[in-house]
């Protein structure tokens, strides 16, 4: 019974893996094309030609590019992301804590943003073209239109400086109590929520409105269901595929696109880590972070695809 679904899901997963491999090639190639030489960058202007040659030999930079790619890929697959050139630290170990911090922030932002966006979308449909709809759309659009650094600083100004409810700098450390941690991420999470809210809300609204034209919505109305129940029980389940898609895109953004917000709030996550090491031209770190971001993006999109497949009763229950 579930065989067509299994087949489709397997296809998506295989496609995702293939895509990830392609991205890894692109990332590797991209960092190779960049001007500048890592050995030169590490040793600085005053390095002698001999020491440069030694270091290149030591780092394996003299090998052909494809060998270095497979070497790097093999390391990645076994959990070895290499060592950071600037600090000499193991990348996997330093990323672990930061990735967890980023996921923590993204998780709480998503917990607030996704249900809020969908509920606001449902309400907007219920009162479509009325003042409630226009107010919701207007506010959501405004919050998206402001750049995130602006929202960040506005939040800091009011909540941290003026009223001093939340800290303006989101320092977190290992073993920090949960409550304090939540207080620390309150402002960056709010900023992220405001950034992603409108997109999800508008898509929810549009997807449901599209379904509201259907004959089965009229059937539901003629059964005497209340307007909100018509939307919730009959329109929403059929609009779920496009909604999941946009939700997943925004979740990916919460993890991958937080660079600016993390920098503003000095939050020790992946974004800040990436920005730090881009400025230091630390190629292995940039590669590793790039690959992780790509993996997050691809897997969330696969989840969206699979969810859309599973949400379709025609595929779930074939004839």
């Amino acid at each position, binding site marked *: 019974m579930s065989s067509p679904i299994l087949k489709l899901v397997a296809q998506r997963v295989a496609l995702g893996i293939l895509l990830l491999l392609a991205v890894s090639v692109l990332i590797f190639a991209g960092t190779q094309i960049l001007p500048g030489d890592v050995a030169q960058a590490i040793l600085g202007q005053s390095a002698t030609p001999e020491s440069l040659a030694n270091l290149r030999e030591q780092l394996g930079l003299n090998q052909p590019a494809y060998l270095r790619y497979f070497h790097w890929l093999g390391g990645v697959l076994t959990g070895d992301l290499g060592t950071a050139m600037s600090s000499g630290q193991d990348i996997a170990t330093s990323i672990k804590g930061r990735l967890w911090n980023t996921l923590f922030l993204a998780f709480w932002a998503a917990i607030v943003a996704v249900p809020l966006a969908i509920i606001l979308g449902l309400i907007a449909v219920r009162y479509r073209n009325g003042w409630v709809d226009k107010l919701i759309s207007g506010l959501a659009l405004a919050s998206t239109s402001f750049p995130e650094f602006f929202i960040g600083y506005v939040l800091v100004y009011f909540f941290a400086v003026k009223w001093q409810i939340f800290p303006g700098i989101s320092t977190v450390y290992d073993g920090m109590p949960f409550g304090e941690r939540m207080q620390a991420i309150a402002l960056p999470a709010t900023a992220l929520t405001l950034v992603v809210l409108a997109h999800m809300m508008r898509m929810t609204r549009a997807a449901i409105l599209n379904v509201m034209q259907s*004959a*089965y919505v*009229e*059937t539901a109305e*003629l059964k005497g*269901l209340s307007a909100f129940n018509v939307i919730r029980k009959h329109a929403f389940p*059929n609009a779920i595929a496009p909604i999941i898609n946009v939700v997943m895109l925004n979740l990916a953004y919460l993890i991958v696109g937080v660079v600016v917000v993390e920098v503003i709030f000095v939050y020790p996550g992946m974004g800040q880590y990436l920005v730090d090491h881009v400025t230091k031209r630390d190629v292995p770190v940039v590669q590793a972070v790039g690959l992780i971001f790509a993996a997050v993006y691809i897997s969330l999109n696969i989840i969206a695809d699979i969810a859309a497949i599973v949400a379709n009763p*025609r595929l779930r*229950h074939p004839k």
Partner: protein
Amino acid sequence: MADSKAKPGLLLDIRNLRIEATVFPPGEPPKNIVLVHDVSLTLEKGKVLGLIGESGAGKSTIGLSSMGYGRGGVRITGGEVILNGRDILKGGKDGFRKLRGREVCYVAQSAAAAFNPAHRLMDQVVEATLLHGTATRAEAEKRAVALFKKLSLPNPETIGERFPHQVSGGQLQRVMTAMALCSEPDLIVFDEPTTALDVTTQIDVLAAIKDAIRDTHVAALYITHDLAVVAQVSDEIMVLRHGRLVEWGGTRQIIKEPRQEYTNALVSVHEIEHAEQKPGMTPFLSVKNVTAAYGRSQIKVLKNVSVDIYPGQTLAVVGESGSGKSTLARAITGLLPPEQGTVTFDGRPLANRLADRPKEDLRQLQMIYQMPDVAMNPRQTVGTIIGRPLEFYFGIRGRERDKRVAELLDKIEMGKGFSDRYPAELSGGQKQRVCIARSLAAKPKLIICDEVTSALDPLVAHGILELLLELQKEENVAYLFITHDLATVKSIADSIAVMYRGEVVRYGPKSQVLAPPFDAYTDLLLSSVPEMEIGWLEKAIKGRRMASAGN
């Protein structure tokens, strides 16, 4: 609280109903139009009233007003709708919600679209009953299964576990009837419940609906444009036109002794005398042993089909949906290259693929489609649309082209003034006439007519058929006439091919095909066409030799 004016036994009393809507014509300020002009009707408990009329007659609008519902921007602006002794229009939104799905239920034209694809049938069937709290879930489901049985659905115990896409159209229509009956309403509004079905399926659904109405003593408003259908189920019939009452009377009186001219026109609409032409010596187009399939599918949509078309004659291809009629047209035109077999034209084979055919071959085969609305570019004027084949095939331009367009407009009985109009400004029948003129402009030997009258009202369709016959005489053009409607076939065909599951099961001159002895399928097809006779339905069901494919 009973209305003092209400008669005992009276269920629905609509008085001077006025319904309006705001329309937004392009380039003009919005304006108010009246859809229903002060129509009154009464319906007693357990009786069936048929509402009949062409599209735009206001029959659905009136039907839905009994639930206080207006589609789109439709508003009830005057009159009273008295249901069970109270004016429901005074009840407001909450009042409507309480009566919808409880006192009045609705059966839509296309059950396939009216069921939510995301929920199981049972959940949808019992939804209204549970919502209004008239039964527990177990009771409601028991009632639903009993109704499935009554409506002779297969596997009544388990069909409710299925999703809408797992059930055929004819079955869905019966499930929808069960859904309406499940909350034991006083009134059901049937809105063209069999129009979207094949004739052979329609008869089963019709019989099931009729039995269910009789056994549950529910009253019904039965809306349709097909007088023969409504004559089978109704006690009384109300004829509507342009939102006004034309005639209202007992079923027998309406179909046997219509008092109004319009009703008379509706009753006698299908009768066109068309003498059969004998096939000539040589056909100009021969389809030989054509087999075709879509994609890489193993399932053949056409199996070894052979037919001949003679100059200036009409070959009608009849069959149910899915029988391969339209696919045959696609194979002949080259849109779907056949896997095997050939199409010969004037003694030489035509290229299989459309792209390989020279312009001259394209010109000789023209098409007219079911939906004239979508077959024309809405942003071109009628003159441009008809003039295009003249430019494309003959290179006629400028004044000469305009002259030819005017002649063609004259041929289709539309004035020269239509040349500058856009399709949106035309009625359905006028649009189809423009499509006919466009195909004639190419001076083809064959016009393929794919269900050209199916989307039109009976009287309009009648006009189109007469026009086609007249043009055939004048231009000596042949038609390949695809239809599911046997009445149409009788009035236009010279020879007939009956198709069933991709095969031609019966083929020959009209007089032979329509004369006994019949094969089982042709018999089913012929006996399923509703006749304007009271009691026809019971007779037809009794006399059947095979079950229809839709079951």
